[in-house]
């Protein structure tokens, strides 16, 4: 067992997959000589050369479109979009083409590509560079959207994404790159796409998150355990396909739920989770499902304002305690 960062897990996995399959290649802005804006591709140009690691012009629609073409030929491009915000320029290629080609071409050609891209606020990058817009892609049939929260998940899910024959949007998070976790030595596990995980068992309440919020949910659970509150944490891991069964099963057990999301509340991912809970566990619910999300404002650049706009351990803890109070349970 080794303890490595989320960043290292991604880099090691990319490298191993490139050794495993000659058809895997990388393209994106600043990924070669500069080794990636967030250093995920560090050392890969030196090791694999320009044929496998391609620096592109600043033209996101261009390189995503080109990757789709390469994928249709049978290559396995792994595109890096510097942040999910820049995917907006490529959104027509992603939604109208990558997600549709298999069906629109009568199943004749699949698009086995991965788009790796980080979301995440909290880095003081301003309103156009701090959005969590994975919802846009999670809404689209034909795409798969993965959102790992730990180094081990990042590795096994990236392996799954690269080997999958469909286009996968692989959501990373700026706030997770430096986080550490255990990864088994020589691990070659391939995650099952579309499976959530109960990352901490509990009995009082279900706390649901994904990506950075799954990590924060774990911290909230840890904190509340010291107060005698038993929180079950569900890490969604896959936003499409969504594993409703795992969510519903947990809520049937605990009887109440809070969803923590790093996006905006109205129409956000949490709305889908709450709807799924009432469909699958209505008779088991002792309290309304609570959602904790960002303030519905463009992300401020000033540090104190950005902090105010983001969900926090405190705001999630408050929501958990209020939910438990609402059902008349003891709150520590």
């Amino acid at each position, binding site marked *: 067992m080794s303890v490595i960062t989320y960043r290292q897990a991604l880099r090691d996995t990319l490298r191993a997959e490139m050794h495993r399959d000659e058809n895997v290649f990388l393209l994106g802005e600043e990924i070669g*000589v500069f080794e990636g804006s967030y250093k995920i591709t560090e050392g890969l140009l030196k090791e694999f050369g320009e044929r496998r690691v391609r620096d592109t*012009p*600043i033209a996101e629609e*261009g390189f995503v479109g080109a990757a789709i073409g390469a994928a249709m030929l049978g290559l396995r491009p792994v595109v890096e979009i510097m942040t999910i915000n820049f995917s907006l320029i490529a959104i027509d290629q992603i939604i109208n083409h990558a997600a549709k080609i298999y069906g629109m071409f009568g199943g004749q050609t699949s698009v086995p590509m991965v788009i790796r891209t980080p979301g995440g606020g909290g880095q003081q990058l301003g309103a156009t560079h701090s959005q969590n817009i994975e919802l846009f892609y999670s809404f689209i049939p034909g795409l798969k959207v993965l959102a790992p929260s730990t180094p081990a998940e990042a590795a096994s899910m990236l392996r799954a994404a690269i080997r999958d024959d469909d286009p996968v949007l692989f959501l990373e998070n700026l706030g997770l790159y430096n986080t550490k976790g255990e990864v088994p030595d020589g691990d070659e596990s391939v995650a099952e796409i579309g499976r959530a995980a109960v990352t901490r068992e509990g009995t009082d309440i279900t706390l649901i998150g994904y990506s950075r919020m799954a990590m924060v949910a774990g911290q909230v659970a840890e904190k509340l355990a010291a107060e005698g509150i038993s929180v079950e944490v569900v890490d969604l891991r896959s936003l499409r396909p969504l594993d409703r069964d795992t969510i519903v099963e947990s809520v049937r057990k605990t009887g109440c739920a809070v969803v923590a999301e790093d996006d905006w509340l109205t129409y956000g991912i949490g709305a889908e989770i709450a709807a799924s809970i009432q469909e699958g566990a209505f008779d088991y619910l002792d309290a309304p499902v609570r959602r904790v999300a960002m303030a519905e404002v463009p992300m401020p*650049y000033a540090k*104190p*304002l950005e902090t105010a*706009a983001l969900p926090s351990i405190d705001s999630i803890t408050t929501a958990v305690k209020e939910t438990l109070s609402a059902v008349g349970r003891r709150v520590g």
Partner: protein
Amino acid sequence: MPVTTSHEEPELIQLLTPEGEFKEHPDYPLDISAEEMRGLYRDLALVRRLDTEAVALQRQGELGLWASLLGQEAAQVGSGRALRPNDMAFPSYREHGVAWCRGVAPKDLLALFRGVTNGGWNPDDHGFHLYTIVIGTQALHATGYAMGIQRDGALGEDGSAVIVYFGDGATSQGDTNEAFVYAAVNNAPVVFFCQNNQWAISEPLERQSRVPLYRRAEGFGFPGVRVDGNDVLACLAVTRAALHNAREGQGPSLIEAFTYRMGAHTTSDDPTRYRMSAELEEWKAKDPLLRLHTFLTRNGLADEAFFAAVEEEAGRLGERIRTECRALPDPAPLDIFHEVYAEPHHHIDRQRAEFADYLASFEGADAEGGR
């Protein structure tokens, strides 16, 4: 990889050589007094000081970020001083020198990078639009604005033109290329001013284009010209001519100001990771201030007392910038709701009220949510 498709060296419009020699150009006669030339030197020196101070303030934690213009002062001051009050400039995020020429106070620029405001000045007051962070988008906005001027019939000698600033990297973006298409077919009064500083963060020009950038214009159907971006006189003359043509209804043009980003892309970047120090040394010899200093001195247009006075003024500016920056107030948490919509919105009102209650639940909180 070949950078050009022809063996001909692209023509570089230059009026002042790096050695400080003045040479006439038949297409760009320059009508300028000695006083105006001294004024340009003062601009270059003060803008450089503004930039140096801002980098230092960022390093001290007073600014979140700064995009240095070091090395690009002549491109910005030359083009900025070519503008008339009626003209409108659309900047990217590095045009501190143009902002200076348009009368935007240094503290208002710093306020943006400090996070005190998302704006900082009224574009109409200065004929200088707000900074755009996303690459290339402002080229379309400028084109639309120029089409508005055209629609208003505000062309001619007393009319207006638009200039839009972007970098070499932005020429790869679809937005910029679509702006070229729209400006061309509508004959819009817009000057596309590309500061080719050779680097799009870590990606050199040959990653963006196989032809000199100014030649892109020809394919869209308007003229393009390459000017020495470190030559403030040439930048002034070429931009004046392009703006004049735009005002006179001759449509758009592209100016490629050939220059060099002597500093980092932003304070978050470290250029030593991807470029050679020899390249920087080579460009230092082409420094925009140096050549004007040499020219003014050699021709008796400015004396030591003038340069000493400019230096002293730069020192005072630096001090003022440091003081004003530190005095900028921190915004209060409830401010996050202020600028979401121009009109009242019940959803925002409710969120603001809930958030105010949440903040008030902390001890010692004041009414504005500050602590």
